[in-house]
């Protein structure tokens, strides 16, 4: 494991496999109810969440607790950015915490990279703007690998707000490295320019994206995208571009539905699809915990 986990861009297949294999082991612990582990004793995990997050933050906090590490919370919030607090000063205070892993979420792309250059602590990117969210993509890949037994050769359709999605970018980097194929569908206002240069295939309709795919991954459509004029109405969005059980008939046999949550039922996906047998959305939460435990464990071993 490298010093930092800033993104999946540039990570090798071996590096990703090391994390996924360790996460499988962590998942076994979780399935057996073993949550008093000591893989990371003496390590401090510092949470630096500049952007609101319930799921990711709780997941990291539980991973920290289950591995016997210390939890350190630094009170920052989206407001501290607005107030113009210097990131550099915050970073300086981090340097006093020894043997630490710093988990950062920030609304601006590249901020974890900026901090990683300044401190000796391990940095884990828990989401930077619309850039990367590596632990999410790793838990997505873990979920796929546990279902299909492999990643190589899978076809993954990522559907929804690709433009603003760090989950999409991390999954593209990771899945392509692992030998999967990635198809993208977004309405044109939510499809970022030049993303095909990252190696994914752009589809012209949601049907084209779902057809022949093994994994259908929905991305959250924030309601503000409608009010900011990216599409006319929620109703039109769901009718034309929503993931529904009807459209799922086009997918490969044994295909699964995934979503990074929180889900907007009746916007990017139907409630029926969320709750269907092929949905792995709740399974993803458990795998998220396993992946974050794996990363903390590997970083603790590498201190």
């Amino acid at each position, binding site marked *: 494991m490298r010093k930092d986990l800033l993104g999946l861009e540039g990570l090798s297949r071996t590096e990703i496999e090391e994390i996924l294999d360790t996460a499988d082991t962590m998942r076994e612990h979780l399935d057996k109810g073993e949550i008093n582990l000591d893989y990371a004793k003496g390590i401090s995990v510092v949470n630096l969440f500049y952007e609101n997050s319930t799921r990711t933050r709780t997941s990291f906090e539980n991973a920290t607790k289950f591995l016997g590490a210390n939890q350190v919370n630094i009170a920052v919030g989206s407001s501290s950015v607005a107030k113009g607090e*210097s*990131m550099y000063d915050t970073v300086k205070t981090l340097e006093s915490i020894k043997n630490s892993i710093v988990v950062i979420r920030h609304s601006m*792309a*590249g901020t974890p990279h900026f901090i990683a250059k300044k401190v000796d602590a391990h940095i884990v990117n828990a989401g930077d703007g*619309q850039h990367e969210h590596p632990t999410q993509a790793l838990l997505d890949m873990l979920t796929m690998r546990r279902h299909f037994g492999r990643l190589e050769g899978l076809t993954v359709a990522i559907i929804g707000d690709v433009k603003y999605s760090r989950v999409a970018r991390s999954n593209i980097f990771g899945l392509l490295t692992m030998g999967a194929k990635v198809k993208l569908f977004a309405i044109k206002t939510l499809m*970022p*320019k*030049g993303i095909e*240069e*990252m190696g994914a295939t752009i589809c012209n309709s949601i049907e084209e994206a779902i057809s022949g795919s093994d994994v259908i991954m929905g991305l959250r459509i924030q309601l503000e995208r409608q009010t900011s004029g990216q599409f006319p109405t929620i109703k039109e969005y769901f009718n034309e571009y929503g993931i529904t059980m009807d459209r799922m008939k086009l997918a490969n046999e044994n295909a699964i539905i995934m979503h990074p949550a929180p889900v907007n039922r009746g916007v990017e996906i139907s409630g029926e699809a969320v709750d269907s047998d092929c949905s792995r959305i709740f399974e993803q939460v458990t795998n998220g915990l396993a992946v974050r435990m794996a990363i903390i464990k590997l970083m603790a071993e590498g201190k």
Partner: protein
Amino acid sequence: MLLIKNVKLNGELTNILLTGNKITSIVKDLGDFMDIPSIDGKGNTILPAFVDIHTHLREPGFESKEDITSGLKAAVAGGFSAVCPMPNTNPVTDNKYIVSYIKMRARESGLARVFPIGAISKGLKGDELAEMASMQRAGIVAVSDDGMPVTNSNLMRKAMEYADGLGMITISHSEDKSLAEGHANEGANATRAGIEGISRVAEEAMVAREILLADSLNVAVHIAHVSTTNSVDLIRWAKAKGIKVTCETCPHYIVGTDELILNYDCNAKVNPPLREERDRQAIIAGLLDGTIDAIATDHAPHTKSEKDREFALAPNGISGLESAFGLCYTALVDSGLMSLDRLSELMSKNPSDILNLPCGELIEGGLADFVIVDTDKEYEIDSSKWYSKGKNTPFNGRKVKGQIMTTIVDGNIVFNRETEERI
């Protein structure tokens, strides 16, 4: 009297005699002149000193970024004898008092000529015209709301007409802000880095508007910092139609692309943003065929802490005075794309002509403003050694050819790399 011995002018070794601030004669054979005070050009090339028609000297108001003295030191170290500071100072250069202050501070520094550019609108707010005529009496040579586009097309029209009546050109910072709510060029690299993109159309739409206004009013307009393929094409079309449009580009659009933002180097954050390779090629084509008239630095110094932070929060701008010649000479002349004469035109005569400045030529009877450059000297750009307070450049460590050895302004040696005289 001062004799500049042994310098290469248009490829031939010669000697240049100065009397006061004028070039008295250019003589191949020294003969009778042997006894007067002289400096040895050591066979290096002599050019008219460069003229920067787009500079941010930051004073008054932002002296931690740059002040007039540090900015002028940077100018002469970069081979410039004249700079035109933009009006986005604090207070804004929108009245004669600030213009007079800048002129006074420039005289105190005494290094390079300063020809301020006044604001188009009061406070750069885009609402009401600033007092252009009074500012002109105090010394401005053009008007611009640089940094802020004039969103109101009717105000831009009035500005172009009013300034034209004073014999001044209006300089357009072309940017439709509603299409520019990002931090890097919209495209594959911004997408990969997860940085919100700025559409090329933000620039191009306003370039088109200025061209059409200039045509309909039959007045001149100058487009600042051209960065995209379509902007170059629009200006080429306008020139072919005889519309009075001139434009400049900057060294960073000649040598850099948005690949430089992939590691979140805030020193590569600039407005307009660094574009893609095809734009860079279009800029070079425009320089070669005369569509682009001039190279200006858009020297935009910032402090280290302002640039050493989250990419989205860092201010735009590249410190450019001290790297302009090396970058341009290497990319354009040493590469064989154009002659040194053409680069000299782009950096001296043309910018001077656009603003009707008395600079930019090296002729008998002309102003003794020139620069001696060592075109063979290879070195790495290192902004820590610059005179400018702004060390913000994405080109640190880049190997370039062509170094400024001596700068003479008004007959005085204001920069000498070997002795660091007067600096």
